[in-house]
């Protein structure tokens, strides 16, 4: 180890009385006092949510109102704290979206477990689960803090879709690619 001796200037008398420093400090705090507040008055004022913010995971619908999740359960699989529970189900053959075939029957995310890691959003092949801007969750019971499918769609709303993969598929079907 090598040592470096730092030269310290001897204190001047004014410094030794400590008074100028005190006055300096007082002027600093006074300036701070008359400045506007640094804090936000939550909940009336809310911080701007930056792009790509990872809030509460939600389920979204595509612009046509189709539920995007097909209950592939990849999010359930990837979720590190096992917060997601899905019961897959089949879309009945006479539904509008029958060509999608599969949709969740039950979809629960336990917000007491969720760590907001965003892996579910990352893994979702249908871009159906999004961590959006809701950041405060509260409830009186444990059950209340489990978001069920209905609540997840309510939180999620509709997001723009770039692919319309299933609509394209339906279009191909209707264009008669099956006929030959």
């Amino acid at each position, binding site marked *: 180890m090598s040592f470096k001796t730092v030269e310290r200037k001897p204190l001047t008398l004014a410094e030794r009385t400590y008074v100028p420093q005190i006055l300096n*400090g*007082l002027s600093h705090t*006074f300036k701070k006092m*008359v400045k*506007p*507040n*640094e804090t936000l*008055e939550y909940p009336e004022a809310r911080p701007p949510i930056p792009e790509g913010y990872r809030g509460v995971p939600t389920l979204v619908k595509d612009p046509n109102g189709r539920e995007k999740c097909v209950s592939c359960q990849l999010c359930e699989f990837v979720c590190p704290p096992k917060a997601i529970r899905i019961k897959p189900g089949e879309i009945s053959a006479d539904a509008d979206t029958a060509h999608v075939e599969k949709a969740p029957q039950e979809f629960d995310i336990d917000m007491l477990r969720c760590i907001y890691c965003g892996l579910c959003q990352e893994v979702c092949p249908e871009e159906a689960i999004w961590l959006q801007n809701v950041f405060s969750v509260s409830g009186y019971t444990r059950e209340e803090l489990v978001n069920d499918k209905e609540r997840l769609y309510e939180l999620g709303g509709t997001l723009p879709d770039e692919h319309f993969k299933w609509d394209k598929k339906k279009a191909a079907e209707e264009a008669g690619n099956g006929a030959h």
Partner: protein
Amino acid sequence: MIDLYLSLPIWVQAAIKGLIAIGFLIPVAGACSLAERKVSAWIQGRPGPNRARAWGLGYIPILGPILQRLGVFHLMADGAKFVFKEDVVPGHVNKFYYYLAPLVALVPSLCTVVVVPFGAYFDAASETLKPLILADVDVGILAVFAIGSLSVYALILAGWASNSKYPFLGGVRASAQLISYELSMTLSVIPVFLWVNAPGPEATLSLFAVVESQSQAGLFGGMWFVFLMPMCAFIFLVSLFAETNRQPFDMPESEADLVGGFHTEYGEFKWSIFFVAEYAHMTIGSAVFVLLFLGGWNPLPWVPLEPLIAGLPVWLGGLLGAAFFLGKTFFFIFLFMWVRWTLPRFRYDQVMRLGWQKLLPLAIANVIFYALAIAVIERS
């Protein structure tokens, strides 16, 4: 009305005065605690307490929201909380002294307030200014010091009666500190009275007289003592901080770094009495400082109150005087808070070193210097 008052038996007068003292000090102490929270918040860039809203008052248009923003209802809630909290008494304390200590803490501050004039009115009969004071005694400052220094007993008592280590150490810290700074404090006011009093039997220690002497004509006559004797004012102020246990001298409590202090074992209403006593102490300290060095109720240096109010009705003049005085006092209370949220706490050895090795010699030198100077001036 004054006649009516004067016609009352003496003990009723005393009771009324006592109630005035309590009725003045306790709300001020409460307001101080709120002010402390607000000032700390503003200095730290926060709005401070502003959420609570009482039904009734809180819903009056305009006024309600203002009170809410000021956190007044928090103050009420806090006060109510202290009263309604369960009274927990640790099993190991000496109950009698344990309960006694907070009362002992409150008594000196309530007593000293009676000898502190908080304004003046123009007495048309005698054509002179009369102090607004509860007890116009000649010993004035001596009474303040004598009774005020009793407050240290409360701290020792609390520390000892709690019968556990932290409060005890806190009590010892407190007593050592208070005794140390009392010396400098007392010494620092001697020059003031040397200046105020001409040699002879007419001498007085009355605080009214000190203000009077700052209200005369002439360069020195109208000059506040803070300009005339800045060193005295400085020593007095530093000692005042130490005596009132305010930052940077709040060794007796020290909050988290030295675990509470003398009131570690206290809670609820008992604790809040300590709290009130501290603020009362601070208020009186500020008042005394204003009287001694800042010209009391005189609005500005070289501008005495008397000619201003001479033509006004008595009540208005009195009110004006009290307003000037209280304004200055409240500024000082603010200064206490301002300093608290600016300076860090001293280490205890520094407190002691500062008290005994720096401040006391300085105060002694100061007394000698002014004594000589006054002697020289008076001779000439």
